[in-house]
């Protein structure tokens, strides 16, 4: 066993030093792995960004109440009486005067023109009372002011302003027959609310012919994450056909629809990865064949076939790790923080940023390593089986 590691190390170094002799082929293998990793990370970063946006949107201190079976805010309808009845439920945090803290809201869809594609897309518009602002975390008016009640004024989410045309403060914008004045821009720290337009609830009721009805009620919970008292209250009153869940749960379930992005990303990357694997195998078999005489010479000198195996495997792993790093770097360069919008579960645009986290980075490198390992294993096996007599044969 003398020099077991030094001989393996030497053979690894020799394999790597021999790479420039097959520069183009090796670069092609690196490139193939890089592309696969970049594609995977683009998809994962997209899914991650979307997930994070939705996860950051919901609070577990707030309950959201919708009509039974409505699944999203858009399809829910709640009458005035229902809202009044509901707000007498226990488990709702009271204000200084002992009144329950809640926000009844409307949720309608309007059209906007996207800046980059110049196509029409849906924007959710929320009818809300100023009290409802207090139920959003990290809410700040970053420009202008909030709307005044009774007026056709809107404040726009930062995401909407970035992605859609015509929402500068002071601008007038028309939805159907009604004209609205943009009076301010708000931020909620990157959450999905930034993809919305907010306006005075009674004004939305009248401009969109909603009478006195609302769509959802948000309740500040007396105990974070505890909707049980409210749920029991609803269950005990046959006139209330309502669902209640924390806002965090609500948005998490909306986000699940987009888990498909990550799955699709993995699927397409694995298919492409098989292509890269074929390239890696080809490159490595070529390397093993080209170096057969060197390998046999080392074996004649007394080097083990384990070292031949390790050298080839290491060469393959190095190529794929370099490819993985290049691909991950490219993904980071082009996609990290890249702002995009996609259809949320409510068929409205949710604006979010691609997010490359260290875990995703690790995922990309793992995929590269898998390609390198499999792509190197079989050629390494062949390398270990190169007959020693090859050393005595002339140059082919």
């Amino acid at each position, binding site marked *: 066993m*003398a*020099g077991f590691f030094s*001989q393996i190390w030497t053979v690894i170094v020799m394999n790597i030093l021999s790479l420039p002799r097959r520069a183009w082929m090796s670069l092609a293998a690196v490139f193939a792995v890089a592309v696969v990793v970049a594609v995977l990370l683009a998809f994962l970063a997209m899914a991650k960004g979307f997930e994070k946006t939705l996860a950051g949107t919901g609070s577990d201190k707030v309950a959201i109440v919708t009509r039974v079976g409505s699944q999203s805010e858009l399809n829910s309808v709640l009458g005035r009486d229902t809202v009044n009845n509901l707000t007498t439920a226990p488990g709702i945090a009271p204000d200084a005067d002992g009144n329950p803290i809640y926000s009844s809201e409307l949720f309608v869809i309007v059209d906007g023109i996207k800046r980059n594609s110049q196509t029409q897309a849906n924007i959710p518009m929320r009818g809300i009372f100023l009290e409802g602002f207090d139920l959003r975390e990290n809410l700040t008016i970053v420009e202008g002011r909030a709307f005044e009640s009774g007026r056709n004024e809107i404040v726009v989410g930062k995401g909407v302003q970035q992605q859609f045309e015509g929402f500068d403060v002071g601008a007038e914008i028309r939805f159907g027959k009604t004209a609205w004045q943009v009076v301010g821009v708000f931020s909620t720290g990157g959450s999905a609310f930034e993809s919305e337009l907010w306006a005075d609830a009674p004004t939305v009721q009248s401009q969109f012919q909603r009478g006195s009805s609302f769509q959802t009620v948000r309740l500040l919970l007396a105990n974070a994450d505890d909707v049980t008292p409210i749920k029991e209250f609803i269950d005990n009153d046959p006139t209330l056909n309502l669902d209640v869940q924390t806002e965090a749960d609500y948005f998490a379930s909306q986000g699940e629809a987009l888990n498909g992005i990550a799955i699709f990303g993995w699927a397409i990357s694995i298919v492409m990865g098989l292509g890269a694997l074929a390239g890696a195998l080809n490159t490595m078999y070529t390397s093993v064949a080209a170096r057969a005489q060197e390998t046999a010479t080392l074996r*004649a*000198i*007394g080097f*083990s*076939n384990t070292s031949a195996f390790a050298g080839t495997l290491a060469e393959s792993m190095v190529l794929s790790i370099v490819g993985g790093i290049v691909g991950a770097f490219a993904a980071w360069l082009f996609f990290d923080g890249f702002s995009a919008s996609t259809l949320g579960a409510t068929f409205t645009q949710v604006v979010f940023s691609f997010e490359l986290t260290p875990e995703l980075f690790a995922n990309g490198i793992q995929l590269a390593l898998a390609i390198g390992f499999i792509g190197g294993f079989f050629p390494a096996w062949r390398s270990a089986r190169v007959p020693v007599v090859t050393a*005595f044969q002339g140059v082919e």
Partner: protein
Amino acid sequence: MSDDILFDLKGVSKKFVKGKDTITVFDGLDMSIARGDFLAIMGPSGSGKTTLLNMLGGVDQPTGGEIWFDGSRIDSLSENQLAAWRANNIGFIFQFYNLMPMLNAERNVELPLLLTKLSRSQRKKNIAAALELVSLSDRARHMPAEMSGGQQQRVAIARALVSDPKLMLCDEPTGDLDRETADEILSMLQLLNREYDKTIVMVTHDPEAAKYAKRTLHLDKGVFVEKDLAA
């Protein structure tokens, strides 16, 4: 068996099976090689010279018979045992030098030492001594591609002797060199045999090369034939 015998081959046979055909290269070959010998093996192409050298070097195994080296049988060793045996006992010199193109001269010479327990500084000493012996101390950092064929073969000789093996096996060591360079290499082998007690077996088809050896055997179709060309 005499202590003077390094190699003893008893009834060695070697057959290659290729599809339905069986090529019999040796069938019951006996030979012995004395310690300190410098043996040249000559013979026409296809007579089995390389096959014999491969079996002596433990890179190929006989189909039948026994090969004794220094009192122990090597024909029944496993592949890994043979690798270790080669590392301890054999220095190979190839027709095409077989240097590692990505390593400089001293790194090439170091290769056999990586299989020993020698420390880094001890290795450095041995490498320097081996390169000195082949008069290439000033080329230690040169890459093979920067050296002539004769210089490359001298690096290969340094590599073969650096771990101080008992036996050096050379397959057409001057087959790729011009006359003058060949003489230089052969003188070097002769020196190693005479001054450093290396036993050398050299395959060649060059009668001039064979003249440097102490004795010459002629192989024809797998058997040694008497042929006194040395006269």
